[in-house]
């Protein structure tokens, strides 16, 4: 055991590719599963939500307009960088969720594999979900899936990394941009994941991560007119959020009550819900 004093990290928000403190100046203490102090996390506010949504909207044109191949490579790069930081994530997940080193490592492995799975979907979605429509007339009609827009995500409260990856990766794979509110009690893996996103060629603003309370921030996301879809997984009162989302006809993900078992293999339902089918028609003739 060295006598060296370690350099402790300041955990901040991730907005528009930068790591600002909350504009509110608020922080809250984060402890490990046994109650030991880990860090002070930024306590994000309504105005941080506003800034994050603005960043996500600005980033949408570029990210949704990038080729699916390019998005796939960028997201695969995220998995590569995640793998390189495996031990750091295992330590943080272990501390946050009270898992043994071996179990925490398995969770991180699953999270990396999940990210790779979603990364590979970017350039298959149009083939699997799109269509050439056999219409009854001299027209070429085709349907392509397009990203819904800016997605607000209230990340799971319990699964600090695997759950987070399972809700964020599908949004990014479709070409949507995201504002994520992390687990309130277990926010540190989310900020470390942000460091990975910031160094993996993910364009600034594509993913924005706020640490704070879902109960406080969720209603602002749900009612924000520039948010197109809402994943209420980590919210305490999903019905209230769903009602607020109705005023702007948001797509609200139907999520089961309680924390899902994130170790289960996902299907493409989450991808489908962040996609809009666009049908294009053109006459055929000479």
């Amino acid at each position, binding site marked *: 055991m060295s006598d060296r004093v370690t350099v402790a990290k300041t955990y901040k928000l991730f907005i528009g590719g930068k790591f600002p403190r909350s504009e509110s100046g608020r922080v809250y203490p984060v402890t490990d599963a046994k109650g030991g102090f880990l860090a002070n996390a930024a306590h994000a506010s309504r105005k941080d939500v506003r800034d994050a949504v603005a960043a996500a909207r600005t980033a949408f044109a570029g990210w949704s307009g990038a080729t699916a191949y390019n998005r796939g490579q960028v997201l695969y790069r995220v998995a590569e960088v995640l793998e390189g930081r495996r031990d750091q994530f295992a330590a943080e997940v272990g501390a946050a969720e009270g898992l043994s080193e071996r179990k925490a490592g398995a969770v991180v492995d699953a999270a990396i594999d999940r990210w790779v799975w979603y990364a590979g979907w970017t350039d298959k979605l149009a083939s699997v979900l799109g269509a050439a*429509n056999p219409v009854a007339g001299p027209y070429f009609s085709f349907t392509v899936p397009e990203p819904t827009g800016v997605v607000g995500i209230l990340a799971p409260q319990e699964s600090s990394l695997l759950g987070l990856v399972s809700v964020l990766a599908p949004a990014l794979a479709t070409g949507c941009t995201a504002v994520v509110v992390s687990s309130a009690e277990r926010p540190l893996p989310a900020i470390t994941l942000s460091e990975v996103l910031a160094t993996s060629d993910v364009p600034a603003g594509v993913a924005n991560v706020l640490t704070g309370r879902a109960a406080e921030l969720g209603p602002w996301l749900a009612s924000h007119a520039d948010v197109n879809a809402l994943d209420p997984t980590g919210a305490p009162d999903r019905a209230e959020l769903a009602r607020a989302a109705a005023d702007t006809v948001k797509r609200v993900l139907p999520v089961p009550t309680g924390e899902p078992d994130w170790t289960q293999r996902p299907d493409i339902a989450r991808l489908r819900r962040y996609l809009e089918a666009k049908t*294009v028609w053109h006459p055929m003739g000479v």
Partner: protein
Amino acid sequence: MPAFDYAPAPESRDLANLKPSYRPFIGGEFVDGGGEPLKSVNPATEEVLAEVGTADANDLDAAVRAARTAFEKTWGPMPGSERAKYLFRIARLVQERSRELAVLETLDNGKPITESRDSDLPLVAAHFFYHAGWADKLDYAGYGPGPKPLGVAGQIIPWNFPLLMLAWKIAPALATGNTVVLKPAETTPLTALVFADICRQAGLPAGVVNIVPGAGDLGAKLVSHPGVDKIAFTGSTEVGKLIQREVAGTPKRLTLELGGKAANVVFDDAPLDQAVEGIVNGIFFNQGHVCCAGSRLLVQESVADELLEKLRHRISTLRLGDPLDKNTDVGAINSREQLDKIRELAESGEAEGAQRWTSPCPVPDRGFFFAPTVFSGVHQSMRIAREEIFGPVLSVLTFRTPDEAVAKANNTPYGLSAGIWSEKGSRILWMANRLRAGVVWANTFNRFDPAAPFGGYQESGFGREGGRTGLEGYLDV
């Protein structure tokens, strides 16, 4: 050159087989509804066509119970291959009775007979024919093996395409194994109740389809009914938001097909004569009572004057009047209420400084009619550029660059449809990619097909109708 006048060519109203009264269809029987009967009016003449019994809360309960029983006992357990045959039967019966239904639709709705006969009815039959084939092929629809239906679907449809909207709702619901309680619009319930008779002729098991006429309060009861598993609504964004709010937090599934304010974008390299036809079709088809109507014309500045001149000339030749006359291009506005709304918005356009031009066509003395109208010099801030008018009123704006066209086209909370007119393929695909709308018509407008998914982005709703994509809204996936 001698000017030839049109001789009247009215379709016989006797073909509609109009009856003095119609009744709700619940559990396979026509029943006396407990609600206050409504009178359905011919909007072209303001005469009462028939008295229609409406459903009250007890009738609605009975309809939902009948649908539940049918779902559990007959329709749900039935093999898809057998369900398919019922849907094929319905498609054929619609074809056989299509002239009767077309004339009845025109009487009840006010749309020109040429449209109900050549557009609505063929599409109704096509929707049932298309979806019939899906009933035993759902394993191949891309939602995994053996996708399950949701149960009882509550469906609420508008008055602009009464029977076609019924087909868009009922055909996919039944193909996927759901049963249905459908509320037709208050002003256009007649063809839905003839469709109920077609269900009987097809031998469809009792309770699979239930038709409950009534007003908005009945729709609200259907939305909040605990026995319903899914709500499908087509109508205004305003009501859609109320429904989404009501359904929020319940296990009910929801699809919404709401309003629109489509941009129809004409570039300087467009075939202008063809574009003029498309613009006219885009906004005057069905009197503009179309959620995907091309109500915002965006013209590149360099061709704006030329296009507007051609457009006014073409619109002047449109014949407004008796919907049953086969020469009629623009029929009646569906109700006095809607006519008042159109007038009010048109007045706001003048008050806000846009230049109004109205077709000099003769307007009948009785009935609800509104002459085709074009506003030029429209700015994005004006109500006629932002709000859905749902009538034969076109707002014309101009642009200089493709980027400006995209920005203006997308400057709306809606996102249902859009049009592009250009001879340059790469420009069309570039635009189609950037327009935030669920349906994009290039060098055409208002094309519909059961194989082509239809539905909106943003506040135009969610979910799709038609195609493989449209099945999702009725499956537990």
